């Protein structure tokens, strides 16, 4: 089965949505958290479905680039929910349930997409996302053009 067919299948059959909700099985969530999770699952599976049905029939190259961009989008989202969850735990000793669950949900979609990206591309994008959030400007600066642009970012 081709990459596109496999991704289409995982969305159309509801497997991806099931995977997202498997993370919360047996957990007593508030209606608010469950609603946010449901909305996330619907939007992200629909987004992936749109790429397979709209872009892939026309251009394989554009489809791959869109898939990579979608992965990066989710990587930032995962990172943000993770950060909120961690800081909340440090401050209060408690769990920020919504962020924790949404990070897990983002992780499920990332896992579904990343098996279709090359290891090299994934490593490049992973490095970029991590450096941006951690503020390791030097590593980012070495790869930026023009090189001085990041000096302003670090300032």
């Amino acid at each position, binding site marked *: 089965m081709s990459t596109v067919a496999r991704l289409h299948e995982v969305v159309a059959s509801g497997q991806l949505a099931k995977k997202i909700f498997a993370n919360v099985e047996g957990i007593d969530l508030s209606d608010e958290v469950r609603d946010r999770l449901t909305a996330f699952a619907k939007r992200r599976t629909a987004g992936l479905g749109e790429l397979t049905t709209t872009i892939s029939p026309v251009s394989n190259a554009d489809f791959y680039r869109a898939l990579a961009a979608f992965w990066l989008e989710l990587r930032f989202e995962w990172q943000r929910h993770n*950060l909120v969850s961690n800081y909340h735990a440090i401050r209060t000793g408690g769990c920020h349930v919504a962020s924790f669950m949404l990070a897990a949900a983002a992780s499920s979609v990332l896992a579904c997409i990343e098996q279709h990206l090359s290891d090299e*591309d994934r490593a490049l994008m992973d490095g970029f996302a991590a450096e941006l959030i951690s503020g390791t400007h030097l590593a980012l600066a070495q790869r930026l053009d023009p090189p001085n642009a990041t000096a302003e970012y670090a300032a």
Partner: protein
Amino acid sequence: MAVIAVGLGDAERDRLIALAVDRSRSVVDLADALPDAEDEEELYRVIAALWLQLRFEWQRHNDVLNYAAVGETPKPELAAEGCMGSLMLERLEGVLFPTHLDTLSGYAFGLLAAVGTRVPVSP
């Protein structure tokens, strides 16, 4: 947050409003998680990453809309979501330095352009 929902059904309109509320809540979650002066640098970087995430999302919707237009399949809900995304991007741009946004988006889109040359997926 205003939602432009011309030509949408009630379900799509409700979904968009829920999305706007969720997005706003995400920013509040960030502010609650990083409330102190010493957190400011990290908060700035995370907001920059949020801006980039929304910028990619806006681009994805735009790409899908363009391809859908070729196939004459209108997607008004995506167009409305794109408008909402633009509004949020504008708001976030108000707290970020323009030079940083140029640098980040230039790097990110350059990275994706390079990625797009390899195409290991099968059609």
